[in-house]
């Protein structure tokens, strides 16, 4: 379960920063919110990159399946990248209501996406990918930068 554990921990970290940024927005502290949001977007986008450049190709190589789960996850990543862009715009305009509104969609989409990955895709990766390859994938993911 090393893939599941590693990736799940990253999801939880992103949730924490997301909630912190939202709190600052509600309190009207846009400077702090901007810092936290940047951290959230960097962590989230790096996580997506790790999956798209290291984990998904390994899964696809081992299973020979490029049209299934990973394709859907990539599509959802694109949707969330779009929302992150909109959230950044709302912070720049200091538009509290717009930010909270986009954050609401982002949160549901993100949680649903995480649920699918944690309950199914990561478990499938842990089962399908041989142990030595799993370790090397995690090492590769640790080096991924935005």
């Amino acid at each position, binding site marked *: 379960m090393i893939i599941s554990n590693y990736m799940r921990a990253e999801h939880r970290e992103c949730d924490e920063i997301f*909630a912190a940024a*939202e709190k600052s927005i509600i309190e009207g502290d846009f400077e702090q919110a901007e810092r936290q949001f940047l951290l959230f977007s960097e962590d989230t986008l790096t996580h997506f990159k790790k999956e798209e450049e290291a984990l998904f190709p390994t899964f696809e190589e081992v299973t020979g399946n490029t049209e299934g789960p990973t394709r859907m996850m990539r*599509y959802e990543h694109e949707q969330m990248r779009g929302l992150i862009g909109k959230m950044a715009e709302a912070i720049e305009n200091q538009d509290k209501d717009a930010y909270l509104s*986009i954050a*609401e969609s982002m949160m549901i989409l993100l*949680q649903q996406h995480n*649920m*699918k990955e944690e309950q199914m895709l990561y478990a499938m990766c842990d089962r399908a990918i041989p142990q030595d390859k799993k370790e090397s994938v995690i090492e590769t993911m640790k080096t991924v930068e935005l």
Partner: protein
Amino acid sequence: MFNQGGLSLDQAPPLSVVMRFFITASIFGILLGLFLFSQSLHITTLSSYSTQLITVHTLSLGVMASFMLGALFQMLPVLAGVVIKTPTTKAMMVHGLLTVGVLVQLFAFGVTSNSLLYFLASAYLGLALFYALYLMLKELIKIKTHSSSSKGISLALTMLIPTVIFGTYLLLTEGGFIHIIDFSQIKEIHYSFALLGWISLLIVSVSFQVIEMFYVTPSYPTNITKYLTLTIVLLLILKMTFILLEYPTTILTATIALLFLAYATVTIERLTQRKRPTADATVWFWLFGMALFILSMTVTLIGSFFTISSTLQHLSYIAFIGFALSIVFAMIYKIVPFLTWFHLSNQGYMEAPMMHDVIHPKKAKIHFYIHFVTIVIWLLTTDITWLGSLLITISFGWLFYNLIFAIKKYTYTQKHCEKIEW
């Protein structure tokens, strides 16, 4: 396979599937308020027995079943990873049969001497609910590894089976087609399965995932997610057996009430530990709903050991209704704005309205205030009051307006906004 899991472009049922159920439920709610209002002013003069039957079944079937089945068509792909193929046609059939069935049943309760109405009501309702059960359970039993939510939803749906069977039996008895030796026994079994099995278990199962997902809370304790729903089902089956054998059911009812009390307390605790700071109306609806569930189950617990007054009994029923409606409203104010945005966004409308543009949280807060006052008034009065009745109409009327507003936003965007072809 993986593509069974979650909401995706080709798996999310069209918005119309959900909305037809939600709109109908709101209309039934509005009509119920108007009916009670006319009763309170003696404009209509039905017996208290007929009034009770009409009220209970408008709420349980017209309002709750419509909301719950609509939500299930939508949530099964997300929470259980199952997809009902060609959902529009199937949802239309379930919706049509259910709506006609409820209307015929209500007429039957109002015009008690007409046997044909009872027969037609049991036929329409039986067909609607068994067809919905078939569509959903057929897919749910295919799941190899169940989550706590998908297992709980399957069990809640299973509890609908005896509810419908005993309900049909009671309807046919009311219509004079069959004769039951002990009507009150069957009635108790019917409403135990309906309230504590179908309605409560569905809410419990859904909450296992959505509380954590919507509000970023710690997960429920494993003991609760693993064993609660199955234990309740076993206790309800035992209770039915005991009732039929005329054994005392005190311990069974008390245990069920205690288990639900533990669940509601944990839910409140989880909500107060949420990481998301937003205190929107949906959190209030959840907290209020759980507080009412605690009230209702506390009275049930006391009532299983001691004889309680009719006032306390009334309190328990109203609290239960308030609980179920609160959770339904909490879900609607998340589901409808999200789905409206989600569908438009997936259809390629770059200017798709965001969730707050579809139903602004302020509108949900207004609904919470109306709902709160409505339930408090009904808790404090034992008679049907014109004010309480009018508030029911206002509450559902406000929801109806919000749903129509969301549909208008959806169709406006489709007609007037630029679309990008993927």
